[in-house]
């Protein structure tokens, strides 16, 4: 895509060599009750380099990043900055050494302007803010790294990609030499990812170092000068040189075995219509969240809804699941109109719903697996847990859920296992056998192994003849699984394409609102 700029960036870095290590971590061990998050980890970052920390969730990359920026203190091991030992008791101390973290969840004040957010926390502010000076200073810093941003814009009005840029500018303004980017692409559309990568290249060209934390293999291969892979808190491998690692190699290092994330689209007949959505609109506080949506999903068909977060996906799922009443339009599940009738009626018509928010919406965190199975079922006045226990045990076995049995508390499950419990409940049918499965971001935040399983389970449901509505921000997931793809932009369906012939560029452009 941008091979020319990448050559330019890589030039100076190769000349500088290993001598210019900016920050390194030596023999870092960090324990939390019951787990060793980092075990004797060595990691270093050179000036002008993008060094990726790759690993599954729970592999210890966030812990290591937290240690590098001063959020956590290691139990053993130490850090060196430009060769001398440093101690970072707090993120502020990290900043004093030029180390800053850009968190996945932005820490910006929505009502403040860009400039106000950027200077927040700076110690050299005068009592009366000289707004104009600050605006100029912030704009100057931003421009010098090719990060154009209007310092007077209010954060609340900015897109996710722009907010991320503000976070980066803030780190640079505070004098960061080493930036830790925690899953920076998780919230971006493909076009924004490209922009971010351009920014990253511009920053490394001017001598900044970037620690890129990710589990998306494609991006990692594209942007990294070096990749270090963590698994179970230990370094399992390190690959030097841009483009020298393949996604397959990295996946193997991450998981420790061969994985295949591409689901084979099985040939299966598409049957009668299960979900029918007609002219669905939803207006909340005068804002149009859903705009005249019409589509249907058939037996044995998987329809994927692509879109950038906040374009109406959550609202669409909630309306179909009976959690929100639409302003106008109708929903029918298996010919039964469920509009306005609430979640229980929708379920009785054959709905199963796996919400994006697993723990807290799909599952009750403080409750056991057993009690969570009861959540969407018909319960007697006196809850008969004894009769459900064998079924719970069977589902735990069938779905390969790692738990100490039906009494295992949902909060203590890993993300992948929590998702499996949720799928087990929804697929096993509660009030009525499942006919329609609505799943939102089913693999978000899961590790590679769990992603594989969850995608297979969803695909099995489709093969078994259920209608599946897959709503996901992960475009790869939509592309690899769906029979049909709909793109949601500002609450409206702006693009529709069969899954087999879908092009990532076309779908990506539609997601960004560039089609038609």
């Amino acid at each position, binding site marked *: 895509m941008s091979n020319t700029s990448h050559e330019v960036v890589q030039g100076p870095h190769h000349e500088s060599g290993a001598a210019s290590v900016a920050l390194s971590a030596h023999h870092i061990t960090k324990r*939390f009750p019951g787990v060793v998050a980092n075990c004797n980890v060595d990691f270093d970052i050179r000036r002008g380099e993008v060094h990726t920390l790759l690993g599954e969730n729970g592999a210890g990359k966030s812990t290591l990043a937290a240690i590098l920026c001063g959020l956590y*203190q290691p139990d053993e091991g130490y850090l060196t900055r430009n060769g001398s030992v440093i101690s970072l008791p707090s993120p502020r101390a990290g900043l004093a050494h030029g180390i800053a973290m850009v968190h996945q969840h932005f820490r910006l004040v929505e009502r403040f302007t860009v400039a106000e957010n950027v200077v927040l926390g700076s110690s050299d502010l005068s009592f009366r803010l000289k707004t104009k000076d600050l605006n100029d200073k912030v704009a100057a810093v931003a421009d010098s790294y090719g990060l154009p941003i209007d310092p007077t814009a209010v954060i609340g009005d900015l897109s996710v990609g722009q907010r991320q840029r503000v976070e980066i500018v803030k780190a640079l303004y505070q004098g960061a030499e080493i930036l830790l980017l925690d899953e920076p692409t998780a919230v971006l559309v493909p076009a924004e990812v490209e922009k971010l990568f351009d920014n990253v290249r511009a920053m490394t060209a001017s001598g900044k170092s970037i620690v890129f934390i990710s589990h998306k293999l494609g991006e990692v291969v594209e942007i990294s000068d070096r990749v270090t892979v963590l698994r179970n808190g230990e370094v399992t491998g390190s690959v030097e040189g841009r483009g020298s690692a393949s996604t397959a190699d990295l996946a193997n290092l991450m998981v420790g075995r061969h994985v295949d994330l591409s689901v084979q689209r099985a040939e299966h007949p598409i049957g009668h219509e299960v979900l029918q959505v007609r002219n669905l609109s939803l207006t909340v506080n005068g804002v149009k969240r859903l705009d005249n949506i019409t589509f249907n999903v058939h037996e044995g068909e998987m329809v994927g809804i692509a879109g950038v977060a906040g374009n109406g996906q959550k609202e669409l799922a909630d309306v179909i699941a009976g959690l929100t009443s639409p302003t106008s339009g109708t929903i029918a599940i298996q010919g039964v109109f469920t509009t306005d009738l609430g*979640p229980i009626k929708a379920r009785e018509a054959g709905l199963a*719903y796996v919400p994006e928010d697993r723990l807290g919406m799909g599952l*009750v965190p403080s409750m056991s697996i057993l009690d969570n199975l009861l*959540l*969407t079922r018909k319960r007697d006045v006196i809850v008969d847990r004894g009769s459900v226990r064998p079924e719970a045990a069977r589902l735990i076995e069938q779905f390969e859920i790692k738990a100490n049995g039906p009494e295992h508390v949902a909060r203590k499950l890993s993300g992948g296992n929590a998702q499996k419990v949720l799928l087990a409940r929804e697929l096993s049918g509660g009030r009525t056998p499942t006919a329609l499965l609505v799943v939102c971001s089913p693999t978000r935040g899961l590790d590679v192994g769990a992603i594989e399983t969850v995608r297979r389970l969803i695909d099995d449901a489709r093969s078994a003849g259920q209608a599946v509505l897959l709503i996901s921000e992960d475009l790869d997931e939509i592309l690899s699984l769906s029979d049909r793809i709909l793109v949601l932009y500002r609450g409206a369906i702006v693009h529709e394409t069969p899954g087999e012939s879908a092009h990532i560029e076309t779908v990506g452009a539609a997601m960004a609102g560039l089609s038609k």
Partner: protein
Amino acid sequence: MRFPLRFEARTDSPKYLSAAVPVISIIAALVVGAVFLLATGYAPIETYQEMLKGGFTTFYGITDTLGLSTVLIFTGVAAAFAFQMNLYNIGGEGQLYLGMIGGAWAGLAFGDSLPSAIAIPVVLLMGALFGALWIVVPAIVRSKLGTSEIVTTLLLTYVALNLMNYFIYTSSSFFRDESTTGFPQGRPLPESATIEAFGSTRVYPTFFLAVVVALVLFWIVKRTEYGYRIQVIADSPRAAQYAGISAQRTTLSVMMISGALAGLAGSALIVGPFEKLDISITTMGYGYAGIVVAALARYNFVAIIISAILFAGLRTGGDKLQITSDTPVHIGVILQGAVLLFALGGEIFRRYRLRVVRQQQQAVAS
């Protein structure tokens, strides 16, 4: 130099802390009480010994303690039941007054014409009903509009207090005893609407009612569909919405039941020792004490029985102390407040642990 102690989040809360936090809260409260005792010139150890003796050692000490614990169990479970859904019914005191008013009214109006077997349950239930009605407005505005129940229930307590005053002091009041010429008194209930204490003690059969109510509530929350719903809503309202469980209706009913339990505390006092509307109840603070009892028991209904007895013992001991020595009775109130603060503050240790932070340089050198 940094403070070498830090809080770290626990991934898991060990079981022993559930017992350790309340016990340490009480010890810490006793230490705070000791400071006040020392400051006012009393010997703390001796005072506490006397209190323990007064509340827990003699026959009358123990029976007085059990007798007093009855009302504290009721107000304790009232606070705890609302808290099952993270609702703070601070107005148990006011609902208790209304329970007394309702109970006294039923007893005075129907007591003569009904046999005891019917009159007593009617008095008790009327108290529960009045308590529930007293919380109905806070319950509705909380469930429909999200108005803080802490404020509304607390403020209604002051209304209830004045209602009490009105009913006792107004000369034309239905509740007023017109036969007394001195200080205004409530009219005593007919005998058929009251019950006797056991022997020469101050323990009434309502004590067993309180224990049974606590156990039944425990069972309801753990075993019934209603309890299941309460747990779901308490932990994650969004999961409740997802499953089609109405948080509004459950909020309404949970608060009404909480109010009914506090009202029952009041009507149990009416059939028990009071047998009339008595203004002295407004100085006892049993409704507020119930919140402390519940907090110390960590809102567990079975543990509330124990913490209510413990609290009753402290108060009985404190009362006896004032009779035998000149120690001010308010030491009991100080202890009650301190226990609440420590019990609530101690919750942080269930979620976090203290960690000694080693100096980084030492770690490198080693």
